[in-house]
């Protein structure tokens, strides 16, 4: 791992002004990322997705993003114009969303969508883009890439759709991939197979990965480090392999309330929320 981090986030805030006052979705969080797998875990409403979106400037109005530092590979992202940001988005940082059903264009063949993602950033002829797209489909272990290239999104399964999304996001060869619940809609075995593909591509290409999820045990086994978020704040950042030794009561509470296969079936401990957590983040 290199010494200079790929991404540095300092004091990131996302606010939504509403009629009833300001809703603070993210309340000043800081973390950095190298060429590693960083998990962001939290319950619904904890601000984990907003964190991922604000890095790519995808928070739509009236949301307001501010940060003391939002630095990617030596570039301060906040100082870029919208057109400079478009150069970064997709090509250097890309994002995989939760549900392929809503992220793919329903009236365009999936192969053409992948080739388009390549041609937006590279000035290459159509057949070259097609060849790259087929290679990419093979890289995400789709068995019959020629057939899938011609398929429409409704003709592929959820697991295959998510692999197609990953192929599309990885074809410009980004340095950082943000995956927002990329496998939550999939069956467990398919979920793990898709993660294995991500894992291999991350290690082969030396990418950084931000993996946003609500599934603490999955993140603990998949990522290198974990950021635990609650109510827009970071509660704890720890090494994934030491998660079972986490100290923060929120992390402990989340771990304890999971049912276990070899548990004794007695009542599950219920998470008690401390109002203090809203005031003090990391």
């Amino acid at each position, binding site marked *: 791992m290199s010494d200079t981090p790929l991404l540095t986030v300092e004091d990131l805030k996302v606010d939504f002004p509403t009629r009833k006052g300001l809703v603070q979705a993210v309340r000043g969080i800081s973390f950095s990322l190298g060429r590693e797998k960083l998990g962001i875990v939290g*319950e*619904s409403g904890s601000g984990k997705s907003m964190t991922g979106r604000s890095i790519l400037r995808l928070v739509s109005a009236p949301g307001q993003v501010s940060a003391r530092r939002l630095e990617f590979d030596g570039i301060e992202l906040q100082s870029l114009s919208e057109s400079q940001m478009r150069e970064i988005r997709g090509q250097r940082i890309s994002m995989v969303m939760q549900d392929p059903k809503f992220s793919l264009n329903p009236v365009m063949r999936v192969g053409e969508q992948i080739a388009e993602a390549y041609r937006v950033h590279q000035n290459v002829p159509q057949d070259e883009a097609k060849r790259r797209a087929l290679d990419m489909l093979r890289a995400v272990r789709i068995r019959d890439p020629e057939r899938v290239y011609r398929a429409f999104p409704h003709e592929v399964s*959820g697991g295959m759709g998510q692999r197609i999304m990953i192929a599309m996001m990885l074809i410009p060869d980004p340095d950082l991939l943000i995956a927002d619940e990329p496998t939550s809609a999939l*069956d*467990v*075995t*398919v*979920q*793990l*197979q898709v*993660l*294995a593909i991500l*894992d291999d591509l991350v290690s082969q290409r030396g990418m950084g990965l931000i993996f946003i999820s*609500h599934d*603490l*045990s*999955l993140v*603990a*086994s*998949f990522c290198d480090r974990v950021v635990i978020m609650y109510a827009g704040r970071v509660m704890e950042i720890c090494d994934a392999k030491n998660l079972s030794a986490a100290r923060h009561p929120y992390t402990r*509470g*989340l771990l304890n*309330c*999971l*049912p*276990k*296969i*070899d*548990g004794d*079936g007695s*009542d*599950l*401990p*219920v*998470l008690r929320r401390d109002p203090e957590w809203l005031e003090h983040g990391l």
Partner: protein
Amino acid sequence: MTAMITASDLNVIFGKGADRVHAVRDVSFSVTEGTTFSLVGESGSGKSTVLRALSGLNPDWRGALTVAGKALTPRRDKAFYKLVQMVFQDPYGSLHPRHTVDRILMEPLAIHGLSDPDRRIEQVLEEVGLGPQFRFRYPHQLSGGQRQRVAIGRALILEPRILLLDEPTSALDVSVQAEVLNLLQRLKAERGLTYILVSHDLSVVAHMCDELAVMNHGAVVEAMDVGLLKSHQPNHPYTRQLMTASLGYDRAAIDRFEDFGLSE
């Protein structure tokens, strides 16, 4: 111990010709009164279809189903719904958005002509851990966990003996899931209910049930006592693969995953 629910050679087929889908294949099981039976499987395994055939939502099935000793017909009478109620997966979709909690709970009482609705509504709200202050709220004023409590309350207000639970916690955060699972366990103990729980989550199943059947492509691949699952000793390779997968990410184990197709 008496069998509360039995299914023998249950088959469900959707569509005709090229679109024919054999969704449930010769499924048989028996559920003892006062216990929880689980159907486990991945999407498309037919586990929810079994539940929908049992609950009367899907009248097109073949085979034999009995509940409390009586054989079921495709059409069900009111007495059946007094005995069997269902809780659905998505509490955001299963409550009428423009009905208050009061009206949601009142409807089953009105249909079945039960007396003293006021007392029953207050009592059931209390039992599912929502105070009387929730009675006149709309679903959009409630969190996901509170909505699922209302859905459980709506099922319980008829005082059924059987609850059919279709992934009751998979739309909820883990901390809320723990609360809802505890609630279901407490209600079962207090009222001697019989549950059928459909889930894809082996750890939820291990926590809740006494016996389970693992389904794949519409057929039961393995039926077992929960003890076997808890001691990590299921017999069928498909069940073992599911169990490995639910234990978390393990790069080496994933390469050994097999595709379990139809076994005719």
